[in-house]
């Protein structure tokens, strides 16, 4: 995983990356049929300024802060320039994996110029992707 450096990934206000509780890999929580996570903004292939707000949409599911165990809910994770995930393990918490553990549905990003990939994945109360995973398409944006 390329640690893209401290200044790459920015969050307004709080650190989203709450420390992961040491969770043994377990079968993920079930996701409801038709559940999908997607980008309201940005869309695949667009040019964006260095600072922009990522807006997250979620279909057929609800948002709950990390730690809240409730069926058909989860919290968002934004993957920036990240390698494919191991979907059976807790999502890592680092600059390439932004945890929106307070139930946020948007996040302000600051990225250096150039192409970047973004992907959304919903994690359950233990930050583990659901079964089947609720994962967006990996999109590419061009930071100017």
């Amino acid at each position: 995983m390329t640690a893209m450096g401290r200044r790459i990934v920015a969050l307004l206000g709080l650190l989203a990356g709450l420390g992961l509780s040491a969770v043994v890999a377990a079968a993920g929580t079930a996701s409801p049929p038709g559940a999908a996570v997607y980008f309201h903004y940005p869309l695949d292939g667009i040019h964006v300024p260095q600072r922009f707000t990522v807006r997250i949409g979620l279909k057929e599911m609800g948002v709950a802060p990390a730690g809240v165990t409730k069926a058909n809910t989860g919290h968002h994770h934004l993957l920036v320039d990240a390698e494919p995930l191991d979907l059976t393990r807790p999502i890592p918490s680092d600059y390439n994996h932004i945890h929106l553990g307070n139930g946020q549905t948007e996040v302000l990003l600051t990225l250096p110029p150039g192409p970047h990939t973004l992907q959304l994945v919903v994690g359950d109360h233990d930050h583990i992707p659901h079964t089947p995973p609720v994962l967006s398409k990996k999109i590419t944006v061009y930071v100017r």
Partner: protein
Amino acid sequence: MLTHASLRMLVALLAALAARSADAQQPQRKASPPEARVFFVDLKDGATVPSRLTVRFGIDKMEIAPAGVARPNTGHHHLVIDAPPPAPDQPIPSDPNHLHFGRGQTEAEIILPAAEHTLQLVLGDQDHAPHDPPVMSEVLHVRVDAATVERARTPSPPGATVFFEGLDDGAVIPTRATIRFGVAGITLAPAGTSAPATGHHHLIIDAPPPDVDREIPNDPNHLHFGKAQSSAEVTLSPGPHTLQLALADHEHVPHDPPVFSKAIRVVAEEPRAPDRPAAPAVAQAAPGLAQATSGAGAPTRTPAPPDAAVYFIYPPKGATIYPNTTVRFGLRNMGVAPAGVAKANTGHHHLLVDVETPPLDQPIPNDPAHLHFGNGQTEKKISLAPGRHTLQLILADAQHVPFDPPVMTERIEVTVMAPRKGGAAKAASKKRRR
């Protein structure tokens, strides 16, 4: 025209300015040899240049001599910036637009603001007067790349300090802790407020001290407190961290000299009981009794961050929409949590259709006009009859009571078009304009 402030010259040039001595009397003009010329080295007309620019001066068929030295076929350079060629029979003025190089310098570092500028070299004799005929370069037009402009730094008052209040090097703190910022000798002011001897805090977490001549970055390692906050609740992952406070001016640039605290090391530990002590003081009473305590007593409404906002991602205000439309909810600076989950700065959405804003100190009613999204949903497909409708989003806490201050949208009006295309849709859009 350049102002003196915008054109900051380096120390070397200051001496040159002093060289302008007794020039008051009309000097004799010195002859220049034919074909003598001065020119810019490696700088072309129309060039784009950085703001801090080293200009090199070339000379041909003559020689450089310091000001005051009377020797035939010599002179010293003058750089004319954003000014017309000087009068040939007068000493060249000495001001920010006319830089003298009376010690015989053949290069200079200048700082130009972001704009188009003209540059011209003029040779002057020992009395700073142009020769006869004048030895001048062409006028170069250059454009300064705005990205290269260095930020001016605000001076800090002597003795200004920032420090952590009640937090020492080596302290053990909870993973979610309130950190207090102390300040002395300088006043806190919100970002964007330009006043002397003011600034706002930045908390630097696990990062080296920021560069002093540019904006402090805004990322998880550099938290900005642009509302002049003097404390903040921060969440740290368990383990050791370094913290440092940096004050910066209205443009987030550190002062000169910088007002930084010492970097301290802290260790964050998970609290024993995961219970949130700051559980919202929501009315435990049955819904409907909540309004009894709306006076000066205990607050029944959960506080919301002042910059929190809920908004419609879709539809926008005034939109014409299909009868079956997915309404998408946006939320800024707060999080979503299912109903019943009491967690600071979270709530759940309510979509109000064709109803007035309900009382804000009571739970939002639960009926077909007040849609609750107690599972934490952030969108909903709704069906509306053709015609005009109003929509409103209100975020509410674990007990369905709106926040204080309320986090809600205005009532937006949308027009639902008839299921058929054509004339009906047109009529609908006309109606929208009323």
